[in-house]
């Protein structure tokens, strides 16, 4: 025998929905935030599968393609007919009539259609899977590389390098926020829960750290990293240095929430019911500020990415051959190279896009974090 359940109205749905469900509803109303979130998923997906998404090996260099300009995607053939499959023109070297320097120019006699799932430079995905399959590329990849976003001063494909660079730049953002979260929750929690002298000391330290100019501090700290360290250790070192300032924001949120929650009725009820302290913290307090913490974390990622980019741009962060967006922007450090090859600024466009996406998504999450507010 089945019991007929009354059909739920939309309103009843609202009253019985869980906290996370309410948050999701509120977040999904914020259109820009949703679009940003999707963009971020794509960006991290591309970083994860950089070998597959990029058409070339990021370190494949060639003197014949030095500073090759970005190839334009064409849909109309030279004879005027239309092709749905985009194609690019091959490149050839020519002499600039004014300056007599060798430049790379498109050659309209060579037509290369862009195909999906093509074979190209071999790679090992995540150090595990050998393959030579790429998401897209052109058939003659061996003789004529595909330069969607141009080539750098060693003739390497900028698009592929940006994809590989995303791996470092985007992961430093997440890892740095992870470290910040660790310090922030522990120190902010202690500060907010115990109060008193220890609270004063921690708050003074936070104030001090926040009043220091970040880039001069980071620069000075980065120099202390031993020069013989491997790239991986330098990467972790830089992430730790970046989160040295980052944790203060997180600690403030945690402390503020702890102070506010301490006075709440349901905490009082739990205390009266003789719940142990650890249970009150973990079961009652932490879940009610997790959402705030997630929003704060999302808003903290851009600072980390910007920090790494700035340090590497100045030549004191990650060093080539490691590829990150900041390292790529080093190539655009002086006006001369930017005027000669403006596409070297393109990694910056990716930085801006990711930062904006994080800011918008974080803004939406912050609004959604407290679904019971009006």
């Amino acid at each position, binding site marked *: 025998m089945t019991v007929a359940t009354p059909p739920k109205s939309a309103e009843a749905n609202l009253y019985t929905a869980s906290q996370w469900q309410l948050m999701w509803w509120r977040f999904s109303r914020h259109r820009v935030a949703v679009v940003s979130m999707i963009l971020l998923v794509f960006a991290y997906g591309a970083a994860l599968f950089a070998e597959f998404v990029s058409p070339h090996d990021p370190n494949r260099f060639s003197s014949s393609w030095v500073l090759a300009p970005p190839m334009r995607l064409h849909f109309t053939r030279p004879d005027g007919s239309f092709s749905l499959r985009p194609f690019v023109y091959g490149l050839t070297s020519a002499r600039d009539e004014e300056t007599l320097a060798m430049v790379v120019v498109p050659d309209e006699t060579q037509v290369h259609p862009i195909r999906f799932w093509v074979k190209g430079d071999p790679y090992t995905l995540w150090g595990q899977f050998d393959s030579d399959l790429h998401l897209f590329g052109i058939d003659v990849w061996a003789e004529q590389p595909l330069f969607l976003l141009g080539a750098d001063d060693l003739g390497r494909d900028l698009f592929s390098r940006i994809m590989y660079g995303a791996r470092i730049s985007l992961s430093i953002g997440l890892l740095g926020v992870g470290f910040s979260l660790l310090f922030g929750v522990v120190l902010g929690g202690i500060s907010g829960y115990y109060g008193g002298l220890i609270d004063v000391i921690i708050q003074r330290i936070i104030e001090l750290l926040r009043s220091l100019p970040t880039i*001069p501090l980071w620069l*000075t700290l980065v120099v202390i990293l031993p020069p013989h360290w491997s790239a991986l250790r330098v990467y972790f070192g830089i992430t730790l240095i970046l989160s040295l300032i980052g944790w203060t924001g997180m600690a403030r949120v945690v402390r503020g929430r702890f102070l506010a929650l301490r006075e709440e009725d349901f905490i009082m009820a739990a205390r009266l019911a003789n719940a142990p302290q650890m249970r009150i913290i973990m079961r009652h307090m932490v879940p009610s500020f997790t959402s705030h913490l997630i929003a704060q974390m999302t808003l903290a990622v851009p600072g980390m990415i*910007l920090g790494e980019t700035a340090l590497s741009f100045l030549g*004191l962060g990650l060093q080539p051959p490691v590829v990150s967006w900041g390292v790529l922007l080093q190539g655009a450090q002086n006006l001369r190279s930017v005027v000669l090859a403006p596409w070297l600024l393109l990694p910056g466009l990716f930085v801006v896009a990711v*930062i904006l996406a994080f800011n*918008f998504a974080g803004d939406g999450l912050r609004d959604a974090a407290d679904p019971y507010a009006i």
Partner: protein
Amino acid sequence: MWKFLLQRLLLFIPTFLVISVITFVLIQAPPGDYINSYATQLEASGEEASEALLLALRKRYGLDQPVYIQYVKWLWGIFTRLDFGHSMQWNRPVGDLIWDRLAWTVLISFLTIIFTWILAFPIGIYSATHQYSGFDYSFTFLGFVGAGIPDFLLALVLMWLGFAFFGLDMGGLFSEAFRDAPWSWAKFVDMLKHLWVPVVVLSVSSTAGLIRTMRANLLDELRKPYVITARSKGMTEWHLVLKYPVRVALNPFISSIAYVLPQLVSGTTIISIVLSLPTTGPIQIRSLMSQDMYLAGSIFLLLASLTILGTFISDILLAVVDPRIRLE
């Protein structure tokens, strides 16, 4: 008021000491000391670095003493003689190298704060009084974009656009003709023609932030009962808004010195490289790359003191403007 001032001043001293300790640790952290590097330098240039000479040098610079004595001596030198130590790369006292560069950093940061205020004040008021208008939305959007663009990238793009489309060289602070010329009216005008670039670039992100704070604070104030009272008495809207809520919402402008100044000093460091400005930025990077730690450390110490001084000044101004803070 005096008690408050004294309190803040007393807090400033331990803060400075903590920063000086951090700086000294940073100076000492890289392996080897100045004398080691000097010996390598001598050997590289073919001269012989005798043990006796090195020992004498160590004694001369006090490097044979324990670290804490070195620290106290260093700090004493700073306080009594403004002696920040010796730059081994330039072979000159650190003080000689940094004062005019520091002055440029201060000047650029100061002008940027003023410029930020001039921009953010009317825009913030308009956005709050015309909430959800097209103007408000466009500035909210611009604010997000402004906060998302790294300042050094903005400087690069601006320089490129200026050069590619107008044939302008926007780098530096002076044109070729004035670089070594003595100060004159023409040189001053030429400087202003160059100075606006870093000021505009730096003010973009801080203006975006300040507009948001101003808007949020003013919105809170506008909903308060005293505004309704004033309105019901028949005050004109503009007079009313400017006289009461704006005055209360002005606090973030003053406290912005405290949190915008570190940002600006930080930003000046990096865009000075791009725009080749004679601030502390380029010299700090160069000294860090060659591990010239006294120079690098002193620059950090001075910049950090500068921003902490900013916090101090904003605290005092806040107390002057807002009796609630003063009487707390």
